[in-house]
């Protein structure tokens, strides 16, 4: 996927959820459902594939939680390039919406 190609709904929501800070897969899933009021769900297969692909692209990276007293857990964190991709996508969506309002 090129940088300026539209993101799939799952990719978009994963990046959006991570823009608020690092999170684990389950947290991303819950946050997505809450944001979309249940319209968008991200199943485990979709989550594994999307996070794997976005790590390869360098949009997100894996870190381990270091909260004291809590089991060490895999978290995903947005990278600078991931944040850029997200902002570009939001700008693109905004343009689409503005165009729709003009017509």
């Amino acid at each position, binding site marked *: 996927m090129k940088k300026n190609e539209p993101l*799939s*709904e*799952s990719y978009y929501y994963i990046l959006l959820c991570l823009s608020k800070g690092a999170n*684990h*897969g*389950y947290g991303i*899933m819950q946050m997505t459902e809450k944001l979309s009021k249940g319209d*968008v*769900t*991200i*199943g*485990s*297969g*979709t*989550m*594994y*594939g*999307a*996070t*794997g692909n976005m790590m390869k692209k360098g949009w997100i990276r*894996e870190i381990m939680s270091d909260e004291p007293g809590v089991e060490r857990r*895999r978290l995903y964190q947005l990278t600078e390039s991931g944040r850029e991709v997200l902002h570009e996508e939001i700008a693109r969506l905004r343009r689409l919406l503005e165009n729709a309002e003009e017509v």
Partner: protein
Amino acid sequence: MSEYKTRYKAYSAWNYENEIEELNKLSEDGWQLVKAGNYHSKFVKNPDIRYRYQLDYGNIEDMGRYIETFREQGWEYINSTYNHWHYFRKVYDPSLPASSYEIFTDRESLKEMTGRWAKTAFVMSAVIGLMALIYLIMLIRMPQILYLLLFLTLGIESAVLFRGALIMNDPDANRNRKGDTKFLYVFLIVLVLGCAGIITTSALHTHVYSTQQAGSMDSPKTDEVWNTFTVRLPDYYYLDLDIGSVSPVTVTIVDEDEETVFTKTSTDFHVENMRLPLSRGEYKLLLSASSGFKVTFALD
């Protein structure tokens, strides 16, 4: 004591949703999957729980991250088959929405998964299809039962795989096909019968190779038995013959009834892949010569 049972399974990859449906039904009947295999799966009797199953296909790079991602959403990893099918189950709770029992929640990720299988199958189908084509060319050039069997076996396997790859590559295709098992049976039966036929044909096919030479001879040979061979498989056989001699040499093949199948008299003769249809029976190779000669005879 727990009660176990083993079930032989016949699902093709492109019909994997049919397997999921059957696993769900078995769980409802109290049979819970313990270990999934390629051809048979093991179940344990436990009527007190109900699971929903899902399958994933692919070569997983990070198994730890993979299993964790599924566990986070309540999926228990069961096992993987050696050809990269992964089995998951989740305790069934009727109050949860249907989407919580899906693992692929968008078209793109489902297409990625089925596309991985389709890609492998397209490559395999192409390789097998190319081999079938090579044997078709050989069959046309030199008709023989072995080439016919190789062409048919490889051709059918390639076609069944190609059809499966097309189904898996189409995101809108139905992958819960009740009647589709017959294609898997065709694949397996052709594989077994084809291999058996190829091995039998190769074992029954007669090969003869013999060479004779002599300097100037004191006593000329007249229809002297040079070699005998048995044909067990009626087929087209191919003759290579080389004669080099001062005076004419005669090479003759006769069957059980002393009927001549082939004869050639010459001082200098060379033929390759001359087609001879031979029926079942005993054959004799006769030689007549009166001076120095060299003859090479090969039958394949």
